[in-house]
């Protein structure tokens, strides 16, 4: 008697907990761009200029890092930037996929992303009135901001300048490569740069003119290092020393290589979904799901009576569990993903129908109801197992070969099928057996 009441109550309690979790704001379900609005950009990298195939991966990774940094500068919430390789070996296409939730005006985003990363070498600004004027202007703004006032009469010409360095002709265009190296005495790694012929000439001139002074190395307008020139350098090789950790040195070498642009990119596709359209799709999708769910349960109860109610509870448990798992493993829900979810709902229900039909049959053969239920499960199992396994095989293949849209579908479907196997064999079974004691 105790067991008979304990398990159903336990299931209901767990189910309610899961439903609460699924509904709560904790780790909210990630929505795809098609449901929340935003932009999806696909860039294709031209890797034909790279020396060897082994260089492709590092080049793509550094491309990713730089573009990520640029997008973060735009202030987009939760951007997704990933490298995708399509095809094999020599035919492979290397793409960078950029997803910008909430961004529907692409103009600025595209310009920021595609701007060539700029590596600049700047010389020290000579002491004098100009330098002081810039410093004074910056101080004025800072003081005003510190007091919480809006700074007035600013000279935009002055404020936008760097007080300590002035641009020179030498940029990343003249760089051949940058590498991390360990000096013989130095404990920390350094970065060796190699310029091309024109770069070497410019660099020789720059070092000659700035002997004993600092040279500012800037990436995308941000100072990354300011080494002091020790001697005139004519062979086009330079070394940046400093207190780098190995990680920092690697990152810097990579950034410098990027200043030399290893992989040019072209935009091959863009998709923008307005926020209103996404919201509408989501609301209508949810409403349709709820109406469909209720209709199915009504049908089950009308047809199977008491077991129909069991199926309803098991199905509600199923939905709560699936949504909770989606939240936990971070599945991104798209319109196609919702379709996969709804389909898995059908498959979950099918397991129940199979069991109930068997149960009816066994009862017609004259078994008492509890035996019929147990027999029903045993006999329905092979059909449930084989049909679900073939479904899992299909969704795995789809995941493997599919594009992002198909993947979204395959993920929700396969997770759904696995969980439906679990709920049909445990939840439905436990509830049904405690009814028929």
């Amino acid at each position, binding site marked *: 008697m105790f067991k008979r009441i304990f398990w159903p109550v336990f299931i209901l309690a767990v189910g309610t907990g899961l439903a609460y979790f699924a509904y709560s704001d904790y780790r909210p379900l990630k929505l795809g761009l098609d449901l929340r609005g935003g932009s999806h950009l696909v860039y294709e990298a031209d890797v034909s200029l790279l020396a060897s195939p082994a260089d492709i991966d590092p080049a793509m990774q550094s491309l990713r890092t730089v573009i990520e940094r640029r997008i973060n500068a735009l202030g987009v919430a939760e951007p997704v930037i990933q490298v995708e390789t399509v095809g094999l070996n020599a035919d492979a296409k290397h793409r960078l996929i950029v997803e910008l939730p909430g961004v*529907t005006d*692409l*103009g600025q985003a*595209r310009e920021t992303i595609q701007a060539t990363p700029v590596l600049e070498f700047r010389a020290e600004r000579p002491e004098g009135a100009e330098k002081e004027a810039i410093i004074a202007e910056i101080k004025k703004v800072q003081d005003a901001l510190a007091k919480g006032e809006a700074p007035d009469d600013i000279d935009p010409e002055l404020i936008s300048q760097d007080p300590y360095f002035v641009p020179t002709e030498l940029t990343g265009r003249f760089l051949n490569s940058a590498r991390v190296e360990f000096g013989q005495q130095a404990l920390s790694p350094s970065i060796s740069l190699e310029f091309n012929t024109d770069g070497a000439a410019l660099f020789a001139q720059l070092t000659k003119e700035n002997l004993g002074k600092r040279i500012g190395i800037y990436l995308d307008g941000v100072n990354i290092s300011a080494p002091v020139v020790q001697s005139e350098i004519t062979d086009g090789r330079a070394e940046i020393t400093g207190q780098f950790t190995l990680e920092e040195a690697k990152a810097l070498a990579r950034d410098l290589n990027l200043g030399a642009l290893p992989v040019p990119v072209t935009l*091959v*596709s*863009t998709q*923008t*979904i*307005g926020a*209103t*359209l996404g919201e*509408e*799709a989501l609301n*209508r*999708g949810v409403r*349709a*799901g709820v*109406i*469909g*769910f209720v*209709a*199915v349960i009504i*049908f089950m109860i009308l*047809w199977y009576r008491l077991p129909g109610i069991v199926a309803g509870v098991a199905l509600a448990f199923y939905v709560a569990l699936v949504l909770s798992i989606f939240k936990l493993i971070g599945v991104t829900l798209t*319109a*196609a993903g*919702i*379709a*996969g979810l*709804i*389909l898995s709902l*059908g*498959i979950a*229900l*099918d397991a129940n*129908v199979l069991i109930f*039909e068997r149960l009816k*049959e066994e009862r017609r053969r004259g078994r008492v109801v509890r035996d019929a239920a147990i027999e029903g499960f045993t*006999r329905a199992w*092979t*059909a449930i197992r*084989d*049909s*679900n*396994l*073939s*479904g899992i*095989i*299909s969704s795995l*293949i*789809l995941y*493997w*070969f*599919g*594009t992002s*849209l*198909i993947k979204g*579908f395959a993920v929700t*479907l396969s997770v759904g099928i696995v969980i439906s196997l679990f709920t049909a064999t445990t939840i439905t079974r436990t509830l049904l057996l405690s009814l028929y004691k």
Partner: protein
Amino acid sequence: MFIIKYRAVFFLLSVLLVAGSIVALVALGLRLSPDFTGGVIMEVEYPAARPAIEQVRQQIVATDLAGISVQELGERGLLLRTKELTDDQHRALLSTLAVDKVAPLEKRFSSIGPAVGRELKQRGLTAIAIVVALIILYITWAFRGVSRPVQSWKYGLIAIVALLHDITIPTGVFALLSHFYGVEADALFLTALLTILALSVNDTIVVFDRIRERLRGSSGANFPELVGRSLDETIVRSINTSLTVILVLLAIFFFGSQSTKYFSLILAIGMIVGTYSSIFIASPLLVVWEKFSRRVK
């Protein structure tokens, strides 16, 4: 038993439907969306009344933007398509569409390179082919215990025949929708076909499973009768399952978002023909094959 007895009628119905679908497909063709062919789609909505479509067309022609088609969409929206659009052209187009200097709200903009589109098509087809092949193998393996009177690979092959039947008919219906209502086959259409694929096999396996169970411990002497009885026993389940799924699909069709309307319709058709084929085609085919091999011997 009724189903096995009158199988010729059911086969004929299916053959007619499949043939009709293929004719529709070949004669009318599928209108592929830029998801597959590459191109630009733009959807805009006006805050108040939409300008007359002829006027919009003339305004566009007046600029140097060529080859843009304009359609009305909903109450206040417009749908525009073209092959390619640069950033500048995009901006120019938006300002051309403006009424009293107020540009309409851009609800959707999608520009897909032809290579990306081709790739989606090719990968979709590859995925379908591999799934089909693996399912034959899986069924052959799952039914390995039953080699009499019909070898297990034949179950696999027949499941695939049923599957092809189940995706051909919805595709044919889609060709009709394409032709008469201008509906385009997009990435969601491909997803719908993949879904039908999964459901169809699922359904066929359930019926085959019953045959497998009955064959165990039986000599399989009266195979047609055995299949007939298995069908009688599984028919309620098959119909109930599809009914419940169709209920959900109807909910999506009537209450769901505009973008999944045809998706749910195609799925519902696939569901109906899928249930039909597993009952009226797949199992009777087993009987036919068994008879045929006996005659050959």
